[in-house]
């Protein structure tokens, strides 16, 4: 019924290998983009931007980044929070050092600096694997957070030890600081996200992505068929860190505005983004969006229902949220190790045949 492919002929290889080969899928993708760019910016208010849309967009970037490393290349990292902090502090230093340069360039440069740091902490991955590596990335997490706490140069010797984003504009609209509008914040993040997601999608289905997946599936076998583990693993670390750094820079400058490193980029953040990737689907760009949306919306939903509807205390709601998130992780790993993305794929298969399954 839905997803009818009859009559949808491909006459060139380019058409055959496009991201959305089914016509309905392609049109839905355009429709989502049109709504995201053309409708939501006019309807959005501060509550929706701050509670749902901006964190969703930023976490999506981070989740795509982590998914490249964990889902595509199979290198588990628990240092995401630390790398986001690198992005945030790099962005802050650049913003204060070169106030005349556009913030867009600063955000991307911050991503580049994070990529360098990621490369450095990716080096042990050549020797150690699996959860040994996961634990080793904890070193990055704790060391980086400590570094930004203790070295005053990073926070420009401010008395509070916090960093706060100065006001910057893009095309005449404020995107950071106190005078920003909800739609400007939203659009700024959306543009970056769409660009990066497009890039990630095309990276992962090209040579780079295939090499990552070969390393993920079995690194020794990949090495034997001629995949260079050094460049493959390190490129995954660098590109993943770039995304995470951009997410950190946006998280600090656009979303929060002022940041205390231990609070905003602690170990909890690393786990949160890892959960987004697991729940959404390892090795899937769509999964990164789904996971980010799920874990951004769940607390908002629970808070509205438990606190708003039933009038329970906020701390009780927070504990129930912990339990639900934990249980969901376990349930997903047992029932569907490939996450929401896989469920979506199965649903699509069903819809192709529905209502005549035979």
């Amino acid at each position, binding site marked *: 019924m839905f997803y009818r492919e009859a009559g949808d002929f491909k006459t060139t290889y380019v058409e055959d290998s496009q991201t959305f080969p089914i016509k309905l899928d392609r049109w839905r993708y355009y429709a989502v983009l049109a709504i995201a760019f053309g409708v939501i910016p006019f309807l959005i208010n501060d509550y929706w931007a701050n509670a749902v849309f901006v964190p969703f967009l930023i976490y999506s970037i981070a989740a795509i980044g982590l998914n490249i490393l964990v889902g595509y290349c199979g290198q588990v990292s628990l240092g995401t929070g630390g790398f986001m902090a690198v992005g945030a502090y790099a962005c802050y230093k650049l913003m204060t050092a070169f106030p005349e340069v556009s913030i867009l360039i600063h955000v991307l440069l911050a991503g580049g600096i994070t990529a360098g740091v990621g490369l450095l902490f990716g080096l042990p991955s050549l020797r150690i694997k699996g959860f040994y590596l*996961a634990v080793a990335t904890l070193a990055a997490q704790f060391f980086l957070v400590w570094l930004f706490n*203790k070295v005053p140069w990073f926070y420009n010797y401010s008395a509070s030890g916090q960093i706060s984003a100065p006001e910057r504009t893009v095309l005449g609209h404020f995107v950071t600081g106190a005078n920003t509008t909800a739609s400007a914040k939203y659009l700024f993040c959306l543009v970056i996200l769409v660009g990066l997601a497009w890039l990630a999608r095309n990276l992962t289905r090209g040579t780079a992505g295939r090499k990552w997946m070969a390393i993920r599936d079995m690194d020794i076998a990949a090495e034997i068929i001629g995949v260079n583990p050094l460049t493959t693993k390190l490129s995954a670390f660098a590109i993943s860190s770039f995304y995470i750094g951009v997410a950190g820079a946006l998280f600090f400058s656009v979303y929060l505005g002022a940041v205390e490193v231990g609070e905003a980029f602690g170990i909890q953040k690393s786990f949160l983004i890892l959960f987004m990737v697991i729940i959404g689907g390892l090795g899937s760009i769509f999964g990164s969006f789904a996971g980010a949306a799920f874990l951004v919306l769940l607390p908002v939903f629970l808070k509205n229902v438990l606190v708003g509807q039933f009038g329970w205390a906020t701390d009780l709601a927070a504990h129930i949220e912990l*339990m639900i998130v*934990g249980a969901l992780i*376990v349930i997903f790993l047992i029932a569907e190790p490939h996450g929401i993305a896989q469920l979506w794929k199965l649903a699509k298969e069903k819809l192709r045949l529905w209502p005549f399954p035979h």
Partner: protein
Amino acid sequence: MPDQLLFAMEVTLNGLMAGVMYSLVALGFVLIFKASGIFNYAQGVLALFAALTLVGFQDGQVPFAHLINAVFKTNLSTFGWHLPAIVAILLTAAVMVLLAIIIEKFVLKHLVNQPPIILFMATIGMAYFLEGLGDIMWGADIKKLDVGLPQGISETVESVTDSIFGYGFFIDNLDIVATVVAALLVLSLTLFSQYTKYGRALRAVADDHQAALSVGISLRFIWVLVWSIAGIVALVAGIMWGTKSGVQFSLSLIALKALPVLMLGGFTSIPGAIVGGLIIGVGEKLFEFTIGPMIGGATENWFAYVLALVFLVFRPQGLFGEKIIERV
């Protein structure tokens, strides 16, 4: 002897004591890893959960009081009794065994044959669940745990060292107790695994799952057993840490501190857990004492990880771990 040297010795001793505390947590990890190949991230939360339950039983708190009050608009808080420490400890041990059975039944059974990294992530999920459960059952406020262990500065050590060196060492009584308990724990675990029927079965499972199954060892029973033991080790760790710094959320973070200990000592070795703990304990205290003041202090947060990271680059299996052999 010069004061500086004596001071360094005192720091080293305190580091050794702190290392024993890390080892206590690391022991639980090693047990589970050896028997099931699962890297149990939830070990720290198990310790927190055990300590919370112990305090709850001791003070006669009503479990889920907060939740019940919120749903039924009641005002419950305690049963109004105080259990003696030993009864509460036994009850908590029973709860930990029950928890092991539940974990096996609802989680592990369904994850047989999954890659280790999936199991690792499942234990992270369990850690979150247990953390929420512990908070809902017993409340999230910081609690004082007192099961009658001695606390404060040991005056004996101070007076003895004072008479020898002319300088009294400050050693916490609790740390001495922890050292003794850790030694007893390791001794009994070794005896258990070497000389009892179930201990042998446990080692068989650790060696080869399939071979163990084929000679009639019940894998599921062994898993329940090993998670129960790990739960009880977590209880011991929870008592020590809870007495030292109060029962609070940060207790679950000691699990993270135990990770570098394991990486140093090797994931499969009980002596490794002890030696690794001592190295980390002494290393971080001495580093903080010598280098720390130069670079801003609070190096204890990351020193252990960086040490383990550097170490792993040279010896990926840890000090006492089995050599990692990979085949295509």
